């Protein structure tokens, strides 16, 4: 088996566990490294218990080829050579493997806890410190000034300038992955929907795709259509909120006030679909729980068009104002090379000029039939991240208007057969923050032996840390808002 390479599969596909190629751990790391050097991108990298030992599993995406690749190590019980030294995008995955299974990634440059608790606070470990007479340290959080999730930021500053930012999370850890093992349980869907609660549709759709793939079926076309619509409504609401929040942070109140309201209007469109503003209860394994009939479609379309016109107007004020543009330009810059090295995804990656979008690279479900153009901007700064969101609002809006013109019709739900035993399934969706990756491995009884969730924030928090290097600390709020990452999606 060692001469062969990773096994290829498409988004939403599954393979018998025994057919995933395996190597002794050192060769597996070398092989994974070779995959990444060929242009692969690390979607997921995690451990699976195998008796008293642990196997490592890597899921690599070849975006240009629209393919995923999977490989695994033979069982290992103490250590493995760190992949991070060659591929920084592996750094958090390796810390997580060390935290969850005690395997030591030898040579890892910054091995410390990811989210593990220690009594009444997370086990943060030591922070990186810069010494010198002019250096001071600033600690922010876990409780922040606004109505927002908790996390801790530790800045090493020389005067106003940030030399280094270290982000310590784990405050939100609710034990999601641990609880999913052995499932699906009756709380599983609710836990998936709240894994990162403002990206409910993205996570629930990835989970549903896994369940359908493990059952050997596809959701009815009508349900795939509704999921695609709901995913774009989720994107519209959150991107609009982000534009408003960015406007607020540079004291540009007209756009801030307008977007606060329009965001709610978009959330209400999701509620029109399923009763819940965050899409809870809409996506189910096997389809959707609520249908979109002709009358509701025309109501949705009319309200959507009106909200799109509103947000277009609010964004136009924003982009027309030189004072806004000058606050955003050349602030919080991440280069395309950095973005590729640390494995950024979603709008944060596209704002560095990387064409990286699951809907385009790995189309599944309805996106095989209909796509929106990928929005990209090259400058890598706060301006670019705002610009990409603004473009995506336009493109998601146009996509929705286009798709609402005709419904595929038919059933919305067919319960999938029970999951196949000893099978690995992978599903990606493009949530509003970027790639949501779910991987499920079933045991001999068809229960989850391992369920691995990678929220886009897991890849992207490092991007925020890099964006702050050399910036004035007073620019932290706009840099942070320009990423607007999930704490609970990271902490799980």
């Amino acid at each position, binding site marked *: 088996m060692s001469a062969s390479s990773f096994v290829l599969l498409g988004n939403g596909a599954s393979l018998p566990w025994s057919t995933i190629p395996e190597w002794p751990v050192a060769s597996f790391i070398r092989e994974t490294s070779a995959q990444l050097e060929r242009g692969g991108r690390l979607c997921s990298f995690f451990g699976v218990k195998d008796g008293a030992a642990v196997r490592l599993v890597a899921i690599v995406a070849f975006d240009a080829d629209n393919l995923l690749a999977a490989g695994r190590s033979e069982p290992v019980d103490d250590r493995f050579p760190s992949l991070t030294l060659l591929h920084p995008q592996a750094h958090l995955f390796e810390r997580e493997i060390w935290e969850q299974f005690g395997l030591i990634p030898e040579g890892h440059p910054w091995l410390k806890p990811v989210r593990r608790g220690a009594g009444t606070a997370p086990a943060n470990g030591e922070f990186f410190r810069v010494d010198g007479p002019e250096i001071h340290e600033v600690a922010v959080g876990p409780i922040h000034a606004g*109505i927002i999730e908790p996390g801790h930021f530790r800045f090493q500053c020389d005067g106003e300038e940030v030399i280094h930012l270290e982000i310590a999370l784990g405050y*939100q850890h609710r034990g999601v992955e641990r609880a999913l093992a052995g499932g699906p349980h009756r709380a599983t869907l*609710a836990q998936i929907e709240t894994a990162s609660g403002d990206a409910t549709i993205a996570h629930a759709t990835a989970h549903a795709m896994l369940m359908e793939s493990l059952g050997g079926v596809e959701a009815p076309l009508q349900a795939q259509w509704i999921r695609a619509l709901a995913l774009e409504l989720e994107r519209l609401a959150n991107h609009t909120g982000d534009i408003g929040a960015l406007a607020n942070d540079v004291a540009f109140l007209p756009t801030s006030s307008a977007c606060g309201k329009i*965001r709610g209007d978009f959330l209400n469109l999701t509620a029109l679909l399923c009763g819940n503003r965050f899409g809870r209860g809409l996506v189910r394994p096997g389809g959707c729980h*609520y249908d979109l009939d002709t009358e509701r479609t025309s109501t949705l379309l009319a309200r959507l068009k009106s909200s799109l016109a509103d947000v277009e107007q609010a964004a136009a*004020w924003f982009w*027309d104002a030189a004072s806004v543009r000058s606050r955003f330009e050349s602030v919080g810059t991440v280069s395309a090379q950095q973005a590729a090295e640390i494995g950024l995804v979603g709008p944060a990656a596209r704002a560095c000029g990387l064409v990286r979008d699951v809907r385009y690279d790995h189309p599944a479900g309805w996106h095989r039939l209909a796509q929106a153009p990928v929005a990209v901007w090259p400058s890598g700064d706060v301006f670019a991240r705002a610009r990409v969101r603004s473009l995506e609002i336009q493109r998601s809006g146009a996509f929705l208007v286009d798709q609402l013109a005709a419904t595929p019709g038919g059933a919305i739900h067919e319960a999938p057969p029970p999951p196949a035993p000893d099978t690995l399934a992978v599903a990606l969706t493009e949530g509003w923050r970027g790639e949501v990756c779910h991987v499920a491995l079933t045991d001999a009884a068809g229960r989850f032996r391992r369920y691995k969730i990678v929220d886009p924030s897991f890849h992207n928090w490092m991007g925020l840390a890099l964006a702050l290097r050399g910036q004035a600390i007073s620019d932290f709020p706009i840099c942070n808002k320009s990423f607007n990452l999930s704490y609970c999606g990271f902490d799980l």
Partner: protein
Amino acid sequence: MYVFDTLTHRLKRGCETMAYPHGPAPALPDRHGGALRVDAAKCADGCTACVPVCPTEAITHPPGQPMALDLGRCIFCSACVEICPVKAITHTDDHRMAVRSRADLVLGAPGAEELRLASALDEKLRRLFGRSLRLRQVSAGGCAACEADVNVLGTIGWDLGRFGIQFVASPRHADGLLITGPVTKSMELALMKGWNAVPEPKIVIAVGACAIAGGPFVGHPEVLNGAEALLPVDLFIPGCPPHPLTILDGLLRLLDRLDGEKSSTS
């Protein structure tokens, strides 16, 4: 050009703040369903169809006792409403759900078919907070949905400021905490530091199924199953997340600011 555009747009839009509570409340989405009502007397002997479908184990039906539904745990998925053969659990389409006592969220016993809605704070606290309430929001494992729907109350459509209610950055400036999330163990220290920094007298408001009872994470060793594990809660607002209207109703009910509407049943 831009200033002129902005002004004409503002004039065209007019006031975007809703009339409620002085006018009618905005309608809930038709598929929302609102609060639940439980007529346990309708249950067939020994029927437990609703018990296993509840994702948060909010429903119990011990033999010989009436079925009980805990709306504090409920995430409003409607699975029980859909499976009940005799329509013992029904939607009321009522947005009002906030209560003062945890026990008031348990439905099913005779006389407890519906929620016992919150009464106002006592006279002394009402005089202190009734026209000016400052809250520090603490998310302790919240998934960002409760946080978002609390945040939305500050937007121009809801304009929470008109009631004298405001969210502040420092607990030292606050009259209480509004807590979301199941209260993770990893937030215990921070939450208690925040609480201890709020000057007396102070209140606690638990928003959402997680903060009331742990929500989808109830029973996980990583969480404390809601705010009551650490603090005395003065107002419980159920939902996953609660609709902004439900949250606003709860806050106004607590402050006795719902003119013309009966604010107390207890």
